[in-house]
């Protein structure tokens, strides 16, 4: 845990802005088992946080705390300086979470799913939806029911939520699962794009990030 604080502190010195996302002595637990405690760090705009660690170390728990699905037993998460429990609506508007479940309806087509996600986040521009489908390599499959897509295609479609919502904070739980090399390159390019546009990314992934531009903006946290 100490090493983690140091790396984050170093990364913060290089960043100009004060941290937009701040985690203050947070404790996470599953059942009665404490997974991590007194975890503190901050993330500024343009930074990527890569959370690593063995299975069951609390990576998903931490992500669910960051997006507000889970209330930490102790400590708090601040977004723009405010506790996310108090100012939940701003945090939710500016945050997109992609969990390990895709959140897609199998009985709707790829296009309908993406349209629904776009409408719910206030995007009515069909051009954005079309562009996202092309970018994700799903243009030819847009009228297929999601139940008929492969696992990798479904994952791509789930990540399409990032492109139609345009939030500041992206929280991604194993975004590269089931995705092929091409798809991975596309997604990494989008991550770089997002970071360059002053976005923040928090992700868990078993594989190291391959792109050099991502690595230079990346802070790694290892949960034990």
């Amino acid at each position: 845990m100490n090493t983690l604080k140091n790396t984050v502190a170093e990364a913060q010195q290089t960043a100009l802005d004060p941290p937009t996302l701040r985690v203050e002595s947070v404790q996470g637990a599953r059942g009665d088992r404490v997974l991590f405690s007194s975890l503190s760090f901050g993330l500024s705009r343009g930074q990527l946080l890569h959370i690593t660690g063995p299975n069951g170390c609390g990576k998903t728990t931490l992500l669910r705390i960051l997006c507000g699905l889970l209330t930490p037993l102790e400590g708090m998460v601040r977004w723009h300086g405010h506790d996310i429990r108090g100012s939940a609506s701003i945090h939710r508007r500016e945050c997109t979470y992609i969990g390990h479940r895709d959140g897609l309806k199998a009985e709707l087509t790829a296009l309908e799913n993406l349209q629904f996600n776009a409408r719910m986040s206030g995007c009515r521009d069909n051009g954005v939806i079309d562009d996202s489908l092309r970018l994700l390599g799903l243009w030819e499959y847009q009228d297929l029911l999601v139940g008929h897509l492969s696992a990798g295609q479904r994952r791509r479609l789930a990540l399409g939520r990032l492109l139609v919502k345009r939030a500041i904070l992206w929280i991604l739980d194993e975004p590269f699962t089931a995705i092929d090399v091409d798809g991975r390159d596309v997604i990494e390019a989008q991550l770089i794009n997002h970071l360059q546009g002053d976005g923040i990314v928090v992700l868990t992934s078993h594989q190291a990030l391959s792109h050099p531009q991502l690595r230079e903006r990346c802070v790694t946290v290892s949960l034990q």
Partner: protein
Amino acid sequence: MRFFRYFHRFSSPREFFRIAGSMIPWLAAATIVLLMIGLYLGLFVAPPDYQQGESYRIMFIHVPSAWMSLFVYMVMAGAAAIGLIWRIKLAHVMAMSSAPIGASFTFLALVTGSLWGKPMWGAWWVWDARLTSELILLFLYLGVMALYAAFEERRTAQRAAGILAIVGVVNVPIIHYSVMWWNTLHQGPTVSKFDAPSIHPSMLAPLLIMSVAFTVFYATVLLMRARWDVLDQEQRSNWVDEYLEQS
């Protein structure tokens, strides 16, 4: 301010465990004394009823347990609300420890009601409005208990069952009045045997003493249950290890 500081201290699991432990013997003693006085006055001092003879004496158990069944439900829902709003663990523990006690009072009210009803109506069960309300209240208690038992994670279980208890408390008056209305519709307005038109002071005194006795009994059992629940919940803290080593 001092009150809040005291309250805060009391709500820490360790302090609660200690203070509750020292209160329980006194409350238990008070329960026994009050029950003995109440039962003596009710069973030996109070005169027989001019209509119902001796059988009315079951009222000294039935009426306090019926009161308690509602009172405990209110306490449970109130504690659950406090736990949900201010995130106080101890309030959740109190709420969930109350549920089985309240269900027992409700069950006792139903059994004594049916025993009382046998000589009155000639049947063990009649769809009397109050008995029916009491039966539905038992269902509400069982729902809270079943939901609490269904979750593996204690925190989720406490909060989910707490929400159900609050939903139930909003519905209790609605259910009560709808059942009363239904009863008058189907049986015609009959004078319920449960409300004596005017109660003699010699009957009122044991009734009130029994009610106080039941309330103190509830407090005793609540603290006992909550104490063990706190111990279980905090089993990973150091003070629990220390306590278990001592005993």
